[in-house]
């Protein structure tokens, strides 16, 4: 099993994702440069946070044209696990691997703080180690996390249970105060219809050790590892 962390020019959470996988999860991981034409035989790919290509024009708008996105798309279409965190989520949206878009936060300011999200769908490779409704304390750090989608897309997301995480209060309630950026339906993260591509605005890689105030993000990476172990066994 091997993880790959894509490095775009301007990625700045690439080292953090790498550290979480290698030093906390103790799994093999390597960086993949954005100009790479392949994914170095990785079994799961993480698009990390940051400001890929400076986020000029629009978040993720330039990154979708990086050469590495071709093999990432191919990998996703063939069932490979792809996780987009923050800027990585924005890139997946721009690349069309996930539906919808993000807008500027409702307060028009960058926000960095711990928030709470609730696991809405534990039946994905990214949440299978979590319980339905489990509340995770995880930081956000973004300017543009205000998720939006047209009514038809939203209906599809709901019908197919693609809403994986919702912002909530500390005790798990849906309330406006728990939603930091104005996201539609308190959406914090979604997956594709096939469940193998997930993107979320919060940073699970920043919540993997109690020294960092929370280890709640670990469950997402553990789920990925479990899922990869299961599929490896199935194909063995």
């Amino acid at each position, binding site marked *: 099993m091997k993880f790959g962390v894509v490095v775009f020019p301007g990625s700045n959470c690439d080292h953090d994702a790498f*550290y979480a996988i290698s030093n906390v999860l103790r799994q093999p991981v390597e960086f993949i440069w954005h100009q790479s034409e392949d994914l170095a035989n990785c079994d799961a790919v993480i698009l990390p946070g940051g400001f890929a290509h400076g*986020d000029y024009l629009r978040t993720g708008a330039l990154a979708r044209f990086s050469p590495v996105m071709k093999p990432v798309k191919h990998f996703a279409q063939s069932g490979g696990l792809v996780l987009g965190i923050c800027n990585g989520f924005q890139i997946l949206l721009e690349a069309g691997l996930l539906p919808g878009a993000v807008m500027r936060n409702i307060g028009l300011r960058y926000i*960095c703080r711990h928030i709470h999200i609730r696991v809405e769908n534990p039946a994905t490779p990214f949440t299978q180690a979590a319980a339905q409704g489990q509340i995770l304390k995880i930081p956000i750090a973004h300017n543009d996390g205000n998720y939006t989608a047209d009514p038809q897309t939203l209906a599809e997301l709901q019908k197919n249970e693609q809403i994986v995480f919702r912002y909530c209060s500390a005790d798990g309630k849906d309330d406006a105060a728990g939603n930091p950026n104005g996201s539609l339906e308190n959406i914090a993260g979604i997956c594709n219809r096939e469940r193998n591509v997930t993107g979320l605005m919060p940073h699970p890689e*920043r919540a*993997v050790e109690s020294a*960092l105030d929370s280890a709640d993000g670990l469950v997402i990476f553990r789920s990925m590892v479990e899922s990869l172990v299961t599929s490896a066994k199935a194909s063995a």
Partner: protein
Amino acid sequence: MATASAEIKVTAEIAAEHGLSAPEYARVQQILGRDPNITELGIFSVMWSEHCSYKSSKVHLKRLPVRGKLVVQGPGENAGVVDIGDGLVAAFKIESHNHPSFVEPFQGATTGVGGILRDIFTMGARPIAVLDSLRFGPITPDHSTPSVSPESIAKNRRILDGVIRGIANYGNSFGVPTIGGEVCFEPCYSQNPLVNALALGIGKKADLFFAKARGTGNPVIYVGAKTGRDGIHGASLLASAEFTEESQQKRPNVQVGDPFVEKLLLEACLEAMTTGAVVAIQDMGAAGLTCSTTEMASRGGTGIEIDLARVPQRESGMTPYEIMLSESQERMLLVAEKGREPEVLQVFKKWGLDAVVVGEVADGGLLRVKDHGVVVAEIPAHPLAEEGPAYQRPIAQPMQNKESAADWFVFAPEQRNLTNNFKRLLASPVISSKRWITEQYDTMVRTNTLAVPGAGDAAVVRIKGTKRALALATDGNGRWCRLNPRFGAMHAVAEAARNVACSGAKPIAATNCLNFGSPEKPEVMWQFSEAIDGLAAACNELETPITGGNVSFYNETLGSSIYPTPVIGILGVIEDATNVLKMAFRNDGDIIILLDGAPASVPTAVNSNGANSNLTREFSSSEYSKTIGGIVAGQPPAIDLPGEKRLQQCLVALACSRAVQSAHDISDGGLAVTLAESCFASAPARKSGDSLGARITIEDRSPAESALFGERGARAAVSVSPASLDAVLQTARKYGVSAKQIGKVTADGIFSIELNRSAIIEESVETLHDIWAHSLERALKQ
């Protein structure tokens, strides 16, 4: 100023327009043995500007302690460097970007952050934290500033907003956590805000890089962003002259930052350094290409020859004068080993950055600048860099208005309930929570942050791969320095070090940013000289040598100076990162102890109404006196440096033995504010989300306001589980620190202080928290 072509004949008048005095111009002629041409004049004018040459401060800076066991690099390089064990070093430095931040708050602040980050990674260290020490004019029409107009308040808010957005924009995008600093408000900063940015980086001791050119024939390589016309004379005109009504016209002198390019430059430089082909490197900050070429040559004892035609340019038709003086951001100059330049160029190509060989290291010690092969400037590098003017400027202590007790704060009658005054104090912009600001910063990127802003007295980052963590704090009290620059400067060092110690770290080194008015005013030079002596005394006593920093003079607008504001950054080391201390109370029933390293320094003689004149004088300089009484007078509290040191040693020992649950120093707003903040900080870690309370009982013969809100140093409040009480008292005794039990942490949601058996403060923690947590945001949204 016209950016003139090379044909202009230089005269003494043109030299004067460039800010060179007649004797300075004569010295230029003497060094060259002829008249300079216009490009050379431009080069001399920026190198000999106050900002780059330290001509007014040099003679005084020599009095600062700069040596220490752990100091690897003191002042004179891009940043100070200290040994932090395990073969690692910390590079850190603080710098001002005051004038640009007034003229154009957003870009002024971004380029301030960008400049200090480059200083760090130029040394081969990866930046891991940024702190910002900020001073603005009032943002609320408070009691003490009746003369501040609504327009001025609105403008101060806009400046604050632009500066915060600028800092956030640059640091967040670059990927360095912005994790601390301070924000203060005083009328004197209305027309001259202070933006001091401190950056910290980590590198390997064996792989440090310095800005010393060597090896004749080695290629000189320009890397990074292209050169444009922005920032020409930023250092000489913007930073080295006071403000007038026309200063807004200097907006084109402010540089424009691009954090994305800086991020690429960081990664590319660190990667290029691993090739082993880089001999020397220096960033292009103030005075751009001029300063980097001159200083690299001068430090290396060599010459440098470059051809400007090869410099990547963003605009066409730039003159040699403009190219040499441009302060375009995100550029570096490096010297590579001859024959290995392709290895270096390859790395920059990978990161999509320009990298061009623009010249080479030469014998003879000359800075020789060509344009398409034609020599346009030829100056001996060493005299240009090192033999600039140095002035012993006139010094005169300002006339002090005779102060009498009538000017001082009048204490409230005994036993009066002070809850309402306490609430006003908690709501004041200086005391209230800065969360609205710090939430706009990415405080967690790189996953090293052990104490986010507001969690502890210092910012704490762990060092991955080791057990250690580093703590950093900045401090500077302009009001106190205005009243007594020597004591004010001592307090700045003592408080920053105390903050670091409250996180459990041993203070090891300092960096300073000295913000003052015009050095041409004898009273400003007196303040400067006094402050230097104060810094020297405190840094010597606390064993925190100064490893670098900068001096910012000419913080004046329309003839009036800012408060003298030396800002100190102190770095400390925590041997075991799991011992980091924060300010939050942790458990119901824990005992609250007031530690005092200098109990004997309390003025004791008491008159009939419970006060004495020393105590009243001290209290008149406090935040409470300013906020509640509208009075800024008297003297800073007396300072006892050995007492400060004892307290700090005691705190570090307590942290090491894990004997205390929390620690928080006593500073702005005094004991009452300290204790309330420890309550407020407790909420996030509790399941219920409610803050713990505190029940405090004090016996004190001084007036209630002084006992609760006095700001005397060398004190901290710690909380202790009953089982550890004896051990804590014993440790305090061992270090000669007084330890008084003053109350208990409670879970009843009430914050109360009883003094000599009278209830002075009693209120629900929730009510107090609401005032403290939201005042700043409410003020800014008015």
